[in-house]
C-alpha cells in the first residue's frame, strides 16, 4: 500500500448507508443465500417457468411438483444474486403443502407488498420479514420479485 495514500473517514450519511445495506444483507437472508432451500432439488416437475432480470443478469428457473391439486415441492435453478436466491429459497420453503389457489394468492401478496411497500403482519411477517427488508432498496426489488413472478407464471401454465 502506498504510504501517501489518503483514505477519508466515513461521515454520518455514509455510516447510515452502510448500516442500511447491512440490513438488506441481514443474517437470515444470508443463511438462505448460502444454504438455499430447493436449489437444484430433484423434484418431479409438472410445470416450469424461466425468469430473467435484464438489469443485473439474474436468471432463474422454477419447477413445481403438484400432487392432489396442492404444491408438493418446488425447485429452482440458475445464476442469480443473493437477494434473488434467498427470495427463491423462502418461496421453496413456504409454498409447499398449499393448494394451487393459496400458493397463487400468497405469491401475489408477496409481490404486491414488495412493489407497493405494504406492511405485512402476523404469520406472513414472521416468515418473510427478512425478504421484505428489500422494500427500502428500490433497485433490488426486482431481484426479490423475480422468483415469485416466475413461480406465478409456472403455476398459471398448469391451468
Amino acid at each position, binding site marked *: 500500500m502506498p504510504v501517501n495514500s489518503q*483514505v477519508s473517514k466515513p461521515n454520518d450519511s*455514509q455510516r447510515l448507508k452502510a448500516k442500511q445495506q447491512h440490513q438488506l444483507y441481514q443474517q437470515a437472508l444470508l443463511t438462505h443465500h448460502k444454504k438455499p432451500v430447493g436449489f437444484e432439488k430433484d423434484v418431479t416437475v409438472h410445470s416450469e417457468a424461466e425468469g430473467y432480470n435484464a438489469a443485473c443478469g*439474474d436468471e432463474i428457473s422454477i419447477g413445481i411438483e403438484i400432487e392432489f391439486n396442492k404444491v408438493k415441492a418446488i425447485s429452482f435453478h440458475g445464476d442469480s444474486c443473493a437477494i434473488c436466491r434467498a427470495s427463491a429459497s423462502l418461496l421453496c420453503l413456504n409454498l409447499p403443502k398449499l393448494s394451487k389457489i393459496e400458493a397463487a394468492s400468497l405469491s401475489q401478496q408477496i409481490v404486491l407488498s414488495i412493489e407497493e411497500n405494504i406492511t405485512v403482519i402476523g404469520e406472513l411477517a414472521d416468515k418473510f420479514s427478512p425478504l421484505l427488508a428489500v422494500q427500502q432498496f428500490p433497485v433490488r426489488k426486482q431481484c426479490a420479485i423475480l422468483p415469485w413472478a416466475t413461480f406465478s407464471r409456472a403455476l398459471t401454465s398448469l391451468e
Partner: protein
Amino acid sequence: MSIVSPWKQDFPIFSSRAQPNLCYLDSAATCLTPKHVADAMLHYQCFSHANSHKGLYQLSANVTEKVEHAREKLAEFLGAQHANNIVFNSGTTEALNMLAYSYVEPLLIKARRDNNADQKNIVISAAEHHANLLPWQRLAQQYGAELRIVPIDEKGQMNLALLSTLLDNNTLVLAFNHCSNVLGQFNPASKICRIARSKNITTIIDGAQAVAHGPVNVIEIDCDFYVFSAHKLYGPTGCGVLYAKGDLLEQMRPYQLGGGMINSVDFNDSDYVSGPLKFEPGSHNVSSIVGLVEALDYLNYISWPEINKYIDNLSHYLFKSLSELNYFKPLLASDIALADFKSNKRPSLYSFQIEGIHCHDVASLLDSENVAVRAGHHCAQPLHKSLGVNASIRVSLGIYNDFSDVDKLVNSLNYTYQLMAIK
C-alpha cells in the same frame, strides 16, 4: 509522480458539501465534471446564450461563431481534414443510429430494388456495445441482410484473421469499437481499416471509450466515420461528435428534419444545405458544445501525456492489486492480458467477477462503502454470453482517482467476500 490525484480538487463533487468520501470508479459510464466545464456552461447560459446560425443580431452571431469554433477544435482533436467533417449530435448512440439510417439503409433500399438485399451483409465485432449492435441488427432484420459477427481473440481484440474471411463484396459496412467498454482493450483500428479499405468497405468506429485516452488521428486510422460522446471526456451528457471522411456527408440523407438545414422549402419539395448543418436541424445544444470545448481545453492544459502517464501508473496498481486477490476472476485470462499490456496500451478499465458472489451483490455492498462501480452486462450482453458469463463488475478510472481509491476498493472487496462468498 504523485500518487494522490493532483486534479481531484478540480471536481466539485468531492468538495466537503457534496461527496468528499466518494470513491468513483465508473468513469467508463460517465466522467465526473470538472468545475471548469460546469462554470463554462453556466457562464454561457447566463451571459451569452442565443440561437446559433439563425439570428441576424450580434448575440446570435457570437453563438454561431462559438459553435463553428468548436467544430474546428473537434476537427483538431480527431485529426480531421476540415471542420466541415464534424457533425454535432446528442452522443454516440444517436450518431450510430444516424449512420444506420442516413448511410447504410439507403444502400439496402437500393439493394432491395435490385433484388439482392438478402445477399448483403453488415459486419460488427463480438465486443460491441448495444448502441453499435442494435441499429445494425434491426437493419439486417428489416432487409433480410446478414449481420456477421467477428469473434474476439484471447486478448479481447477483434480476431483479424477471421475478420478477413467475413468481409466480402457484399459487405456494406464494418462497424467496430476503438476500445471495448467491457474489456478495455484497444482494437488495432488502422490495421482493421486497412483490411476493410482493401475490399472497398466503409468503416465506422465507435470511439466512446477511446477518446478518454487522448486525441485520435482519423487520417492515420483511415476510417470513414468516427463517433464519440462528450461525457466520456469530462464534458456534459447530451452532446456528441460524428466525423465523416471527405464528402461522405454529401452522400447521406438527413436523419432528422427541421429548421436550419435547408436552402429552400416549398410544399412539394425541399433543398437541403450541404455539410454538417444538414445533420443538425433545430437549435444547437450550445451550452453542451461549450462544455465539451472547455473539457478539451482543460485536458489539453493538463497535457495528455501527463494524463496518460498518471492513468497508466494507476491502472497498473489497480490490476496488480486485483490480481493478488485469490477470488478475483478477470473476464480475460490475466496472464495473457498482462503480457499484452506490456506491449500495448494499458486499459483504464477492468471487468471481472468475484468467486462465489453475484456481481449485483458486490456492487450493492461496495456502494455501502461509498465505492461506485458498474455491475451487470454494461450494455454488452452478447459479449458476456460469448465469454460464458451473465454479468461482471467493471471498475474504470478517471483523472480524479488515485491510489487510495484502489486501496478502498480492495478493502471493500475483501469485506464483501468475507460476508457473502459461498465457499
